[in-house]
């Protein structure tokens, strides 16, 4: 992946918590099956209408609540291109990056409407709204985090590292 990502906006409000993103009642299903119920508590159409590459655009405190990685995992199964919110909850933010999902904070998400074509430049920290011809500042992804996202997440990153023998095995640490 380059430093840019383009997609259509799918809009949510404030406080989209993990019980909404990945309802607990469906967690006994496989992650791929559970993904079909993502957001169903507030938007029953989401999983069937969101397109691969769409960018979630939300308000404050996106991903609050549980530590469950099924929340970002569901969104990865739905092939979300990136997530933009005014702010993210702490555990969700780390989980998303660890799964290779790009997440940036932007104070101007209110200006983006459903379906707007947006283009995020992670290195520059800008979000270009093609539909409205507006540019908003957003947080940058530091180069090592961007690399993690580009590799597909922490596990892929660790696999590469272990392949190179950069990560000591448990025995070697003793």
């Amino acid at each position, binding site marked *: 992946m380059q430093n840019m990502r383009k997609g259509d906006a799918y809009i949510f409000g404030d406080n989209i918590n993990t019980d909404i993103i990945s309802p607990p009642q469906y967690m006994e299903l496989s992650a791929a099956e559970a993904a079909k119920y993502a957001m169903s508590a507030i938007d029953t159409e989401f999983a069937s209408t969101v397109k691969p590459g769409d960018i979630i655009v939300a308000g404050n405190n996106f991903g609050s609540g549980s530590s469950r990685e*099924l929340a970002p995992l569901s969104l990865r199964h739905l092939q979300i291109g990136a997530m933009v919110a005014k702010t993210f909850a702490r555990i969700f933010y780390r989980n998303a990056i660890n799964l290779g999902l790009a997440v940036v904070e932007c104070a101007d998400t209110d200006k983006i409407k459903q379906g707007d074509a947006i283009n995020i430049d992670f290195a520059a920290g800008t979000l270009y709204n093609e539909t409205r011809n507006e540019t908003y500042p957003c947080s940058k992804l530091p180069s090592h985090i961007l690399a993690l996202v580009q590799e597909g997440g*922490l596990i892929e990153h*660790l696999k590469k590292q272990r392949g190179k023998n950069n990560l000591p095995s*448990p025995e070697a640490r003793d």
Partner: protein
Amino acid sequence: MGMTLSEKIIARASGAQSVKAGDIVWADVDMAMMDDILGPRVEIAERMVELGAEVWNPDKVVIISDHYTPPANAKQAAIVKFTRDWAQAHGVENYYEYIGPCHQIMVEKGHVLPGSVVMGTDSHTCMGGALGAFSSGIGSTEMVGILVNGQIWLRVPETIRVIWEGNFGEGVMAKDLSLATIGKIGHAGATYKTVEYTGSTIDGLNMDERFCITNMAVEMGAKAGLMNTDAVTDAFFAGMGKGPFERLASDGDAVFCETLRFDATALGPKVSCPHEVDNVLDIGDAGKGIRVDQAYLGSCTGGRYTDLSMAAKLIKGKKVKHGRRLLVSPASKNIWEQAAKAGILKTLSEAGAVIMAPTCGVCVGLHSGILADGEVCVSSTNRNFVGRMGSKKAFTYLGSPLTVAAAAIAGELVDPREFF
């Protein structure tokens, strides 16, 4: 310059003389906890195989099947079986099942020690902070990292100091203090920070009550909820033949990003109204007379001995309102037995309560007490998010065990002080 309690613990765990808020360090993890719903089955077992990695130290891993116990269907049963088998295959001897929510089991079995770093794949892992441990919730992939090499990177958090002074009035409990604090700080007001609870009110609380408070730190976005250790902490550990441990507290000249002061003498019963935990109102302002279908007394937040005992005191000799239900799930098998021995379960049962297994099932809508469309629940748990306890058209109010007990008797939302 002095250090906060968080800074002290993280400095020790990272092998540094001192650290300060904002530093990013690698910390050794003293105890890694997984449950069933968010345990090995989610992105952990498979990834460990892919990496060809073994668990770095099985003695520092605890696995607890609690959400899907007792299982409601074959899928849940399969998850519990998988969790049990995985623990055994990886030499994890600290495996527990069916005996209650993980956070209660962690403290009850002595897996959370003062000054230690505890990481768990459940957001309410922050409860352990009441014992002066840096205890926090993480995702599955981060747990893989810990299982491989025993470490996690942490950004040393700033600390919000929350000072509560004075004693509670009658009918007021630690849960009310917890909700009042969350109402003030807000659902994201402590994101990435530690909330440190201190003051004469906290000093006067027993461990049951302290756990109720730190349990909900994550509802403000916090990474940890911490308390000093003191004679109450020592007594808790003495009960299991451990300690005494070095007393831990923030230094007098430690830097706090914010200090908030509260007066416990002015505190009344609070409820979190649907569908946000920080939507906190005085119970009198929440809409007196709201019909309550289900009253739930249980969970890692509000199902400990003190909670059951207070609820039983209010309920004794009264009856659960006809057509309503009071479900009780003691927070552990141990608490179940203590409450049985003290006659508390009998009192609750005679009033019409249904006494259930210790489990997470009701709190998170997995089994044992799921809400139907339009139903209202008053619950001693920690989250009231839309759809969490069952139907997305149901409504959950969070309150103290006394508020839950009062609602069960009255069949509606009511100030528990009316029963004193």
